[in-house]
Structures are given as structure tokens and as C-alpha cells.
């Protein structure tokens, strides 16, 4: 039916190709949708973000180009294509040219291990999650390449900050995923989704609905926001700071490629979050399983994107040292406690006990760590006196 329409389409098209090149055609037919769908989603997200931010700020977003502004990405693409490509004279031209390309290539690779629907995964690797994180780390290299090649001390500073931020936030990201891997017992993304496929009553078996899964999901999403340099962690690309970021010397289309890479990274990490915690392509309620699986995946992806936009519109930026302190002194211990709590959940028998133990571990850890954060940053509620 509708759920397997793309799989059937692919097999039908394969039937028309000669047997000799069938493997190549099969690969092509698998990759092509990824290369088409996600950039279109990127274009849609740029419009959605601007309109969403506009509505949050009580104004219209772009609404001149196309129906309700939907063709705005066309205008933006045209603008960035026709801009002059300026490369500084003293820049390292090869590295300068390669940086956005590497970012782009690396941004597309993680989509290979995300199960977008039932039987719809590009590469069913046994160590899918490991592959994802390995590839994700390469994108940090391209950020540093961009900052280094511009031969500009500000962009170098921005690049170093960005790399430091990304490396620090890899750790809570990985630790929260380890909790899920422990609970599922496998590194394969397809296995993890399958483990979350059942229902108890009307509640799905998603990991986000367990105490450790909920906290793990929150940590994962915070780390994901930091990984993709989105607000409130966007100091490396801060507009109102003096250092405008590692892509300060890029103009025109290469700038657009950086944005494409960043947003694709956002989709990839959200996709992994959905796979690990939100049950992948599974339906949330037992009577909704007739809706095709890939629609659920994209609906959840849209929900997470809306979450990103919402957080961006609300929160100011964190300073660099506060960012790093938050990663190492709050999120890392919290992620460790999540792993311990997941272990307790796995090995205690089903029932109220394991809920209580898990939640208690997490609550105590949160209380202690939160107090640490507040005292270190000297955050306190203040009262003011008045003179008559």
C-alpha cells in the first residue's frame, strides 16, 4: 500500500534496467531521493524559519515572493548565485575551495543510515549509529578548514571556538545514545526502531517515554543544537559580536553551501534523535498505524525543526566559557547518570520499582548539578529595594 509505495516504485524501475547494471541502478535509485528530498526540505525550512520567527515576533515573515512567501528560497538562491565570489588574496585557495565541498559531502552521508520508513533505509549497517557519529565528526574538520584558509585572525578564532564547542558537545550526545544502544542491545538503527515498535495499551514503546529516555532525549537535543551551531549556541556565527564566524570570508554560493551543510546536519541529527528516542517511523498511537511510516518520520522531523526555530526565537546567546562549562560540568555528569539510570531500568523487573528508581536517580543528579550551575554562574533571583 501507500506505506511501501516508494519501495515498490524502486523495484518496478529496477525491473526495466538490464541485469548487468542492476546493482548500480539500485544504488542510484536509493541515493537520488535523499539528494532531492533533503535539499528541498532545507529550502522549505529556511522559509519556515523566517516566517516562524516573524510570527513569534508578531510580524509577517517573507510574503512577497510566491504564495505566502513559499518561493523565497528561489529568490535567495538566485541572489547567492549571482553574487561575486570574493576570495582573499592571501587565502589558501585550495583549502578555501574544498571546505564547503567537504562539508556538503559529509552532510549528506549520515542520511544513509537513517530509517525513513519501513524497509526504507539506504544502507542497513550493523553499526549504523557508529557510522553516523564517525561521519559527523568530519564536519568539524571542514569548519576548521574554512576558518584556517581565510588567513584572517578573526575567522580563525571563530573556527577554533566552533570546533571546541562541537567537540565538547559530542560527549553528551554520544553518552545519551549509548543509553539507548544499551537498552536496545544493538548499534543498528533498524534494530533500534524495531525495538520501539510495540504498544502497551495506547502508549508506544518509545524510549522517550521512559524516565531515562526523556532526560536522554532532552540532553540529546541540547547537544544537537550545539553541534549544529544554532541559537542559543551560535556564538561562532554570532552576528552582534566582533567575530562574525568562520565563514566570514565566504560570499555568494559558497556561503549558501555552508548554510546548506549546516541545515542538513540539523536534519541528520534530528533524524538520529527520532530514530533513537522517538521510535523512528513508528506511529504514536495504536489506531494510527494505517498512516504510512515515512509520513510519521517527516512529521516528527518537522516537529523537531519547529522546536529548533522556537528555541531560536526565544533565547539569547550563551557566552563561550558558559557554553563549555555547561557541556562539561552539567551535561556530561547528567549523561552519565542517564546511562546508569538506563542500566537500572534494564535490569530491574517490570513495574513501579524500576520507574521509581530511574526517576529518583535522575532527579537527585539534576538537583545537585543544577545547584552547581547556579552557584558557579552566581545566578540568583534578586529582590530590589525601593526608596520613597
Amino acid at each position, binding site marked *: 500500500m501507500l506505506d511501501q509505495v516508494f519501495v515498490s516504485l524502486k523495484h518496478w524501475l529496477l525491473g526495466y534496467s538490464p541485469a548487468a547494471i542492476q546493482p548500480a541502478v539500485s544504488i542510484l535509485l536509493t541515493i537520488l531521493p535523499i539528494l532531492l528530498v533533503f535539499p528541498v526540505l532545507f529550502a522549505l525550512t529556511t522559509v519556515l524559519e523566517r516566517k516562524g520567527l516573524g510570527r513569534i515576533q*508578531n510580524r509577517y515573515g517573507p510574503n512577497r515572493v510566491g504564495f505566502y512567501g513559499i518561493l523565497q528560497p528561489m529568490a535567495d538562491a538566485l541572489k547567492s548565485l549571482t553574487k561575486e565570489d570574493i576570495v582573499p588574496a592571501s587565502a589558501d585557495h585550495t583549502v578555501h575551495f574544498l571546505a564547503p565541498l567537504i562539508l556538503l559531502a559529509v552532510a549528506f552521508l549520515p542520511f544513509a543510515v537513517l530509517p525513513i520508513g519501513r524497509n526504507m533505509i539506504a544502507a542497513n549497517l550493523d553499526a549504523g549509529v557508529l557510522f553516523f557519529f564517525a561521519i559527523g565528526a568530519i564536519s568539524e574538520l571542514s569548519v576548521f578548514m574554512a576558518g584556517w584558509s581565510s588567513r584572517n585572525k578573526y575567522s580563525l578564532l571563530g573556527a577554533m571556538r566552533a570546533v571546541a564547542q562541537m567537540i565538547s558537545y559530542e560527549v553528551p550526545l554520544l553518552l545519551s545514545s549509548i543509553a539507548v544502544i544499551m537498552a536496545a542491545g544493538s548499534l543498528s538503527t533498524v534494530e533500534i526502531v524495531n525495538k520501539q515498535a510495540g504498544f502497551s495499551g495506547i502508549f508506544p514503546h518509545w524510549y522517550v517515554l521512559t524516565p531515562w529516555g526523556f532526560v536522554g532525549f532532552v540532553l540529546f537535543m541540547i547537544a544537537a543544537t550545539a553541534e549544529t551551531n544554532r541559537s542559543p549556541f551560535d556564538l561562532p556565527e554570532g552576528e552582534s559580536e566582533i567575530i562574525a564566524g568562520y565563514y566570514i570570508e565566504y560570499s555568494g554560493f559558497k556561503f549558501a553551501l555552508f548554510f546548506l551543510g549546516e541545515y542538513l546536519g540539523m536534519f541528520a541529527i534530528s533524524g538520529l534523535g527520532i530514530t533513537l528516542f522517538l521510535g523512528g517511523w513508528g506511529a504514536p498511537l495504536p489506531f494510527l498505524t494505517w498512516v504510512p511510516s515515512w509520513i510519521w518520520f517527516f512529521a516528527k522531523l518537522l516537529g523537531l525543526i519547529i522546536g529548533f526555530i522556537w528555541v531560536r526565537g526565544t533565547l539569547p546567546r550563551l557566552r563561550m566559557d558558559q557554553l563549555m562549562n555547561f557541556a562539561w560540568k552539567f551535561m556530561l555528569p547528567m549523561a552519565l547518570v542517564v546511562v546508569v539510570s538506563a542500566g537500572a531500568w534494564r535490569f530491574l523487573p517490570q513495574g513501579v520499582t524500576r520507574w521509581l528508581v530511574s526517576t529518583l536517580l535522575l532527579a537527585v543528579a539534576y538537583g545537585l548539578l543544577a545547584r552547581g550551575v547556579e552557584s558557579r554562574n552566581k545566578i540568583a533571583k534578586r529582590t530590589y529595594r525601593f526608596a520613597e
Partner: protein
Amino acid sequence: MLGLGILKGLVETARNFLGSYIDKERLVTVQFPEERLPVAEAARNFPFLIYDGVDPEQGLRCVACQICEKECPPRCITIEKSKDKKPDFVGKQQFYPAVFDIDVSVCMSCQICVEVCPFDAIRMDNEFELSTTDRFGGLLWTKEKLARPNEHYEAIHPTEAAEVEARRAEEKAQADAKKQPSTVTQ
């Protein structure tokens, strides 16, 4: 609890997001130039000269007393008196301006010229879409460009115009009464 303030902030933003669809009060954007805001009655932009009747030359109220030229803070008004005189609305012979130029690129819309004019001859217009591509004189307005009929004044500032009319009618009545000697002394 750490994070509670952030959550409250997120709730507030969500309320504004949803409210901008539901509540007309929240989404205050006026999509210029398709929609326009109503202009306040007192709004002022650049001056204009009033003439009564239909002939801008004959009905111009300005008598070239040059008070506005003296009081204008950035000195953007240039006036040259005429050599001959013409009658004003009460019949007295008055000079009129041969040249009345306002350099609108200098004018700061302060309205002092309007306040000090004793003859209700210069008032503030509220038109603001005035850009021109002529950089060598497009913003130096001469008497012809500045003259507008009294009906225009009544249309844009009705309350003020009513007061001015009432006062001028009274002055005219007094002047007419002085011209006709009264029947009692006859």
C-alpha cells in the same frame, strides 16, 4: 529549578506565535503600500502656502512679511517682496512674495514658521511620499509648487481650519463694519 525561566520564556513566545494568528491586536503589521495607516490629524511634514479662491496668484494669503524667514531655524526659506501691492481678504493693500522658496532638503519640519505667521498663510502638509530623482533642484520648492487651495487645508486639518475660518470671518466682519459707517451716527 534550573530551566524553569527558559520554559516560561518558551511559553510566552508560543503565546505570541499563536496569538498573532488569532488576535488582531498582536499582529500589528500594516502592509505598506497596499494598506496604509490612517494619518493623525496633527501630523506634519513640510510647509505649504494657502491661497483662497481659485487663483494661486491672486488669492495667496502670504504678504511677504518675512517673519517666517527670520524665525526658521535652519534658514531654509527665501522670500523676495514684490514691488507692487494687492488687496488681501479684508481689502487692505498688501505686498505679496515675488519669490518664495523653501529648500525642502534643509527644512526640518519643526513648524515654527507656522506658529509665527500672523496671516495664517503657511501651514504644514502631511504628504511624505516626496522623493524625486532630480538632485539639482527637485527639492527646492518654489511658490508655484508650494501653493495649495484652502480646501486642501480644510481636508487635512479640519479642526484647525475651522478655527482659522471662524477667526478670519470675524475679522472680515469687523473690517466690513468699519467700512460702512453705522446707521446710528447717520
